[in-house]
């Protein structure tokens, strides 16, 4: 096993939102009042607890996700960033991302977040179409979204935003137009998600009883290719299934997940994976915010599940994440991160068939990657390829 030189990525979860969006299955909760001091303190305590466990290491990125972390006070964010800088060895160009919703309240505080140490914003714009925003149950309109983007662009060196497409009845031409408008707003990074019906959401109920239908199969595939085409015209390259960036502007934090790097996850419902003494320890925390805080207050952390993953599981995880990336996987790294030689992690006959079908390809550098056609079918490809 290689020594613990793997830099860390730190995820911090803020589990509150102003309202629950009908498509969303994230661990987010709506509260009339949030005891900011209490949750801030608990986050800091859990961070300290995990830092003591994993030891001092290089820290490459911090990501405030949610929920809606832009509802958190910038002071809380500042304290957490400061703690992290003290507990770890921050990389000189450490990436610190904040997810923000484009409501005016949040936009007004963006500068304070920059002062706290945030250097990258990820805005949940979701659409540049008023009707679509209403359908998605968003609390902002197109005007506010654009204002937020402009403000964020002026404040942060790096900017990304999210759009949800393949919405009911969305025609390819309309999506291309909306996307072009978005690309013109000059972000260096975009997350473009096809709308997914997640079990247990309000949309699952509506969709289940036939209130609306989504583009599927060939239509969804066409929209997907159109998306990559439009992004490419503006110099944004598809580097992951749903993520597009100018070269060098990729989200370093999210790349850590896809490259199966070590990451800490702090906060309600957060997940964590760290290689400790050759064992990949997977941790999951209590999802209910108040219970999570109570547990942290009692014992320093709120892990509800913790296990050392078996080598075969690690190989599967490393591959299922890595093949989402355009750069693909490095067989040597798969072995280093899982302890399973690459050749044993995949079914050789299926690997050959998938290469033959041009769903997979070897790069000159000896990496295995899914082609555009392969990525499009990744969920079907993985169970066939992996052992």
């Amino acid at each position, binding site marked *: 096993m290689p020594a613990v030189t793997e830099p860390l*990525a730190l*995820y911090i979860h803020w589990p509150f939102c102003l309202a629950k969006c009908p498509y969303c299955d994230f*661990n987010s909760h709506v509260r009339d009042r949030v005891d900011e001091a209490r949750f801030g303190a608990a986050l800091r305590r859990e961070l300290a607890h995990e830092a003591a466990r994993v030891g001092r290491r290089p820290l490459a990125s911090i990501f405030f996700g949610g929920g809606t972390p832009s509802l958190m006070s910038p002071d809380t964010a500042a304290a957490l960033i400061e703690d992290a800088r003290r507990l770890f060895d921050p990389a000189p160009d450490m990436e610190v991302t904040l997810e923000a919703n484009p409501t005016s309240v949040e936009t007004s505080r963006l500068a304070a977040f920059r002062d706290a140490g945030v250097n990258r914003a990820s805005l949940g714009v979701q659409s540049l179409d008023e009707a679509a925003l209403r359908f998605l149950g968003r609390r902002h309109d197109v005007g506010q979204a654009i204002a937020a983007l402009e403000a964020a662009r002026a404040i942060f060196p790096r900017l990304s935003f999210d759009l949800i497409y393949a919405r009911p009845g969305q025609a390819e031409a309309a999506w291309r137009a909306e996307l072009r408008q978005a690309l013109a707003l000059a972000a260096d990074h975009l997350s473009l*998600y*096809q709308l*997914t019906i997640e079990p247990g959401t309000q949309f699952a109920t509506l969709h289940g009883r036939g209130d609306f239908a989504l583009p*599927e*199969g*060939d239509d*969804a*595939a066409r929209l*997907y290719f159109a998306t990559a085409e439009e992004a490419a015209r503006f110099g944004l390259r598809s580097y992951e*299934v*749903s993520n597009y960036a100018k070269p060098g502007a990729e989200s370093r934090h*999210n790349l*850590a*997940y896809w490259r199966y790097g070590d*990451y800490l*996850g702090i906060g309600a*419902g*957060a*997940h*964590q*994976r760290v290689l400790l003494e050759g064992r990949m320890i*997977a941790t*999951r925390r209590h999802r209910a915010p108040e219970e999570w805080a109570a547990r942290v207050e009692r014992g320093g952390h709120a892990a509800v599940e913790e296990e050392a993953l078996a080598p075969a*599981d690690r190989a*599967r*995880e490393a591959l*299922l*994440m890595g093949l*989402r990336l355009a750069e693909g996987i490095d067989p040597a790294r798969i072995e280093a991160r899982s302890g399973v030689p690459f050749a044993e992690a995949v079914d050789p*006959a*299926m690997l050959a*068939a*998938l290469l033959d*079908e041009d*769903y997979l390809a070897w790069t000159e550098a000896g990496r295995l990657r899914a082609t555009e056609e392969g*990525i*499009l*079918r*990744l*969920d*079907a*490809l*993985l*169970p*066939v390829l*992996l052992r």
Partner: protein
Amino acid sequence: MTDTPLDLIRNFSIIAHIDHGKSTLADRLIQATGALSAREMKEQVLDNMEIERERGITIKAQTVRLTYPAQDGKTYVLNLMDTPGHVDFAYEVSRSLAACEGSLLVVDASQGVEAQTLANVYQAIDAGHEIVPVLNKIDLPAAEPDRVKQQIEDVIGLDASDAVMISAKTGLNIEGVLEAIVTRLPPPSGDASATTKALLVDSWYDAYLGVVILVRVKDGFLKKGQRIRMMSSGAVHTIEQVGVFKPKLVPTDSLGPGEMGYVTAAIKTVADTNVGDTITDDRNPAAEPLAGFKPSIPVVWCGLYPVDADDFEKLRESLAKLRLNDASFHYETETSAALGFGFRCGFLGLLHLEIIQERLSREFDLDLIATAPSVVYKVHQTNGEMFELHNPADMPDGSVLDHIEEPWIKATIMLPDDYLGPVLALCNERRGQQVELTYVGARAMLVYRLPLNEVVFDFYDRLKSVSRGYASFDYQMDGYSEGDLVKISILVNNEPVDALSFMAHRSQAERRGRQICEKLKELIPRQLFKIPIQAAIGGRVIARETISALSKDVTAKCYGGDISRKRKLLEKQKEGKKRMRQFGKVEIPQSAFIAALKMDA
């Protein structure tokens, strides 16, 4: 307890066409004689198998012993046998008839005589039965008792002037049925002092009692502790328990002549209990066995395979236990390239096949795949040898084949005149030859010779749909004739699936081949690769379809919090793949084959 004088015993079967109300009448007779309390009573109480209750049909004949104080002041013992109505379970009926002296012929007064009414009543006449016609469902506004009486006289040739008019549902005139049983049906004959002779009518496996056998005593007695001998196998056992059906099993000291009841005797070997066998006393055996039953001859065969190869032994044991309870079902081991080790099983028809499959999966918790049903062909080879082909996969290649004979049936179809046109068209499309067309009022009785092969393939469904459910159907085997038959192979991803190959008349080959290819195209989910599906005769492709590759299947969002969930999903998908068959690089869910194989059942 069972030293009832013979003249106070009546043994009778209830026979009828499907759904004419046999089991409901049995309910009323059980109730009227107080055999079960109101609390124990439920509709069609004798249909105790789960499948019988779900489908509302009787599959197994059932026996109950009733006591009835008649109007003549004497108390009678009535042994009632409720029988199934469907043609596939005719063997149950024939065995019940052999155990009785009389029958109640139930006819639905709104529907009249149907195909199985005829088939069953002729069997009863052949068995020498006294027959009491019972017109049921006279509560229905559509009931036409007079017309139906006339029909019974015209079509069956039975005097229906004294037919008992009842409603089994409302309980109207059940007393009339009971009186007819004691006054019009004959008592059994038998000799109490002669050596023991009892007919083995049925057997089954009971979790507490082990093998239980249903007997009809002809002469002498069966007693606890007695050493008995099975005359055909020579096997000897000591009786542990004898008793009667009330309808629960109630032990008695002995069973005397003319009686029906059960025997347990620590029987371990299933082969020791052959229905139709004669049971006698080991120390004082009878010289001659009773007449017994004609063995049943399966007309439809198919392969049954465990989905999980490890279940093969369990399947073998389960088949043995089922066979104990169903002598009309046959099986032998076979192997298939696509499906592994399994059994070739013979049935009396498609419903029988379906029921056995269901019972195996429910009662024995087995997951099975069944291959396409096939009839038995006689294959004549150029060297003059002939063999019986039970499995299309065993067809020899063209060079050694001389000719093939296929089984034909004589079918009786009864239907309202209005539907005659489409039914004739259906029979002709299936290569039928009309034998007879007669009328009873507005009802036509059509007799056709048909190749059994054509009936096995979705004939019932088509008949039902073209006649809006008004046609009834019965058949008997009617010899073999030469036919222009070919074997059609199905290839998935260019590999033959032996379990899907089937025989068909050359004139039907293309249509049938296309049908199954289309069906498979619908059933096989799109995958990573495109999948060609072909039907071929020898090397010649007669139909083809292509399943195109799936177009998009990828999770949009997958971050640090999603990894565990994704991996677990992946593990589940891999687990699911164990249920798939590999054809080169494509995997086909077994459920698709099963559904394709079911399409004509």
